[in-house]
């Protein structure tokens, strides 16, 4: 397992990773103090948004929430490892990925509240909508990558336009048949796709040890897909591994599999109670490996962070949480008929008929809101 930052924040040299992290890529590399502080702030922000979302679910404002607590480094690192033109295909617990791709947290909340089908334009942000069905997105991602090959934007030697796909899934989804099928197609066609698993140790209540007799990273090797396992709570290791993998894929060298070893600090979702199947001692053990704390210690060792910066991050994170809190109370329910709008890219006669039928069906009901509104109007006139 590749680890660049030890638990106490000390950085270990690693020739291949250091070349990518500290190399000429970007403005002075991916691990400049400015960028490191940026990752720290990203992680603090996304954690605050996550905690707030859990509260909102408990307050009846979200149908469900899947917390990503503890996986911040695995997500912020991978998100920032992707290049603008890359296409990311997430699962449903990728709030840090979304943040790094420029998707505002309340867009995620819209989906979990059920007022939106996705919350963002996948083409604009080059990030697919969240996928709830486990593993279903892996073949989609490979298909997209095969499409890129046919578009001729792979292996041309132009790093600014050559494109790769980052397919994300969890340890549980890695046991789904779709992932195996995706491996097959990706390997056969040498598609420019990086499979990225955040192994957070628990597939709801099933531990990884039950799911696989070997480290997950080894699974892809039978397909001839090279793999690497990194410390998922180490933002630099993740960043380096995913950047190397994506650049290799975009250069036309075929798929790569990256396993980031991390831990889901919260329950599977707000409907789950983790204390029923795992010991709190395990959670305490992983709390010692907290990804945010680790990066902070590293920055402290470098002398590149001070109390004022930490306090400001915390304050901004609190503000973000309160914004989400107030924002969600103002969300409006969408027009139910809107669900027909995006069923197909182009007009479709059957969908049109169904839309009309649904409108007729809706017309059968009295609408309490309408009644309330007309009552209000009368009151105003009076």
């Amino acid at each position, binding site marked *: 397992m590749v680890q660049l930052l030890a638990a106490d924040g000390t950085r270990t040299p690693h020739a291949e990773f250091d070349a990518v992290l500290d190399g000429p890529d*970007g403005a002075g590399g*991916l691990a*400049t103090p*400015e*960028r490191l*502080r*940026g*990752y720290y*702030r*990203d992680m603090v*922000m996304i954690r605050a948004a996550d905690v*707030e979302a859990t*509260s*909102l*679910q*408990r*307050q*009846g*404002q*979200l*149908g*469900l929430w899947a917390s990503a607590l503890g996986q911040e480094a695995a997500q912020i690192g991978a*998100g*920032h490892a*992707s290049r*603008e033109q890359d296409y990311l295909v997430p699962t449903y617990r990728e709030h840090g990925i979304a*943040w*790094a*791709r*420029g998707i*505002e947290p*309340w867009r995620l909340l819209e989906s979990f*509240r*059920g007022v939106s089908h996705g919350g963002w334009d996948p083409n604009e*942000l080059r990030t697919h909508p969240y996928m709830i069905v486990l593993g279903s997105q892996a073949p989609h991602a490979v298909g997209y990558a095969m499409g890129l090959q046919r578009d001729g934007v792979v292996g041309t030697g132009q790093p600014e336009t050559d494109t790769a796909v980052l397919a994300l899934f969890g340890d549980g989804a890695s046991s789904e048949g779709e992932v195996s099928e995706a491996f097959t197609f990706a390997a056969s066609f040498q598609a420019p796709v990086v499979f990225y698993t955040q192994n957070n140790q628990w597939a709801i209540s099933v531990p990884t040890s039950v799911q696989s007799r070997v480290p997950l990273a080894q699974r892809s090797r039978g397909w001839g897909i090279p793999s690497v396992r990194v410390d998922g709570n180490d933002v630099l290791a993740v960043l380096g591994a995913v950047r190397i993998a994506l650049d290799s894929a975009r250069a036309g060298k075929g798929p790569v599999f990256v396993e980031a070893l991390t831990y889901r600090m919260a*329950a599977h979702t*707000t*409907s*789950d*109670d983790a*204390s*029923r199947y795992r010991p709190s001692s395990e959670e305490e053990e992983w709390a010692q490996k907290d990804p945010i704390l680790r990066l902070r210690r590293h920055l402290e060792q470098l002398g590149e962070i001070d109390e004022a910066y930490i306090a400001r991050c915390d304050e*901004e994170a609190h*503000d*973000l*949480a*309160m*914004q989400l*809190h*107030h*924002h969600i*109370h*103002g*969300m*409006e329910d969408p027009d139910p008929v809107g669900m027909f709008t995006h069923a197909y890219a182009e007009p479709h006669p059957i969908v049109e008929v169904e839309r009309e039928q649904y409108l007729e069906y809706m017309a*059968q*009901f*009295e*609408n*309490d809101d309408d009644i309330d509104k007309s009552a209000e109007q009368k009151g105003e006139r009076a």
Partner: protein
Amino acid sequence: MNAATPAGSAGSPGASSIVTIPLNDPGEGLTEAEILEIKVAVGDRVEINAAVVEVETAKSAVELSTHVAGTVVAILVAVGDEVPVGTGLIQVDTAGGPVPSPAPQPAAGHRSADVQPSSPQQISAQPEADPSAEELAAQATAATAVSAEAAPEEPKNLVGYGTQAAPQRRRRRLAEPAQSDDGQQVPIGRILAKPPVRKLARDLGVALHDVLATGPEGTVTRQDVLNAQQRAYGGEVDGDYFPEESPQAPEGLGGAMKSTRDQPFSGVTSDDRTTRVPIRSVRKRTAEAMVASAFTAPHVTVFNEIDMTGAVQIVSQLRASREWTDVKISPLAVIAKALLVAIRRNPEVNASWDEANQEIVYKHYVNLGIAAATPRGLIVPNLKDAHLMTLRELAEGISELARTARAGRTSLRDTRDGTITVTNYGVFDIDSGTPILNPGESAILGVGAIKEKPWVVDGQIVPRQVATLSLSFDHRLIDGALGAELLRDVSAVLEDPSLGLVWG
């Protein structure tokens, strides 16, 4: 943008703005929860997202938080209450406190100046496209004279059924589809019911074939099941068997007087030589039940020592069988089955004495009580319609009842309407006893420890698995002969399980 003022965003000294924090559905599709702990008291100041109540649902124990800041003015529920989703839990007065969170605008597109976005995208976490944040900031800072109209409204609940005061249901405007012409029931062959209705029936202990089906094409509806339950129980049976978190026997008397929740019991006092514990909860129920039973029903107990070797062999065979690997089978399940077979031959024992109506009520169903020693005391949940169960279902049912009881999650419903009980004091390595009837029942079978003993078989002394059974019965309605008959039949099946084929 909804014109409604987001709750908790406005308030002014003196203006009374009471917000009720309801029980929202903390899972997916849950309908009720039990109050485990109330974390605030009247007069407490709470901030947004402060945990106020901990509840336990069918899925998990969760902390519920307040969506507004303010002062707690009322607590509407008590620990131990089982309340439906939508019930108000506490009330918070949002007036008078500081205006919470003006949601200040962070400078420069939400990213501080010295932080370089590490990805090529400009990251903007600021809701620029949405007016809510600005509006909020404006409202919050301008909130000086807030009138009653501007008081925080109840937020519209997304999840669950909403607050009871503000149902979000829509009414059907057109007439309901006409009822089927004759309204006749489809004859029972295959019972038609949707899975959730079947589950409801199972949960309520209602046998589907006893339910009058009124749904389309003879399907059993939810309401049918509820009606059937109403008939069966004649009243409200919801609730928890353990009304409060107060097991009466603290571990290590005089020592660590702590409950499972690490809180001292209220009312427990202790000096060097004695500890006084208020009589409550299970101990109180047990005492009342025992007194009621022992002093109204004249008890007679008969005993029989039997050779259980055959029954024990069946248990070990089943344990070794692949089909039974996931079922915990114990001699108790076999004994329960033997009792059910014996009841079938002597149905008059399965009855109760109705003093008020001066009637004996003979029951055509067996709700088989299983006495369980739990950390909180003795409780007797029963297996509904045990007479319809296979041995496997009995084994699974008994394990489930025991597990639920030990976990302290037995519902009141589980303990109601028992018809006859088995108590297995053999687990305490006791040979025999005189069990007291569960109130309202007429018989209770006691099972002693199964021990290897010398036994005479065909004139030879051989070691056999021997146990003593005892049967206590209510002599008002069961004569000695009938009681003896029942115990003899139970014994016969256990000594020669093949009789189960003949009688069962």
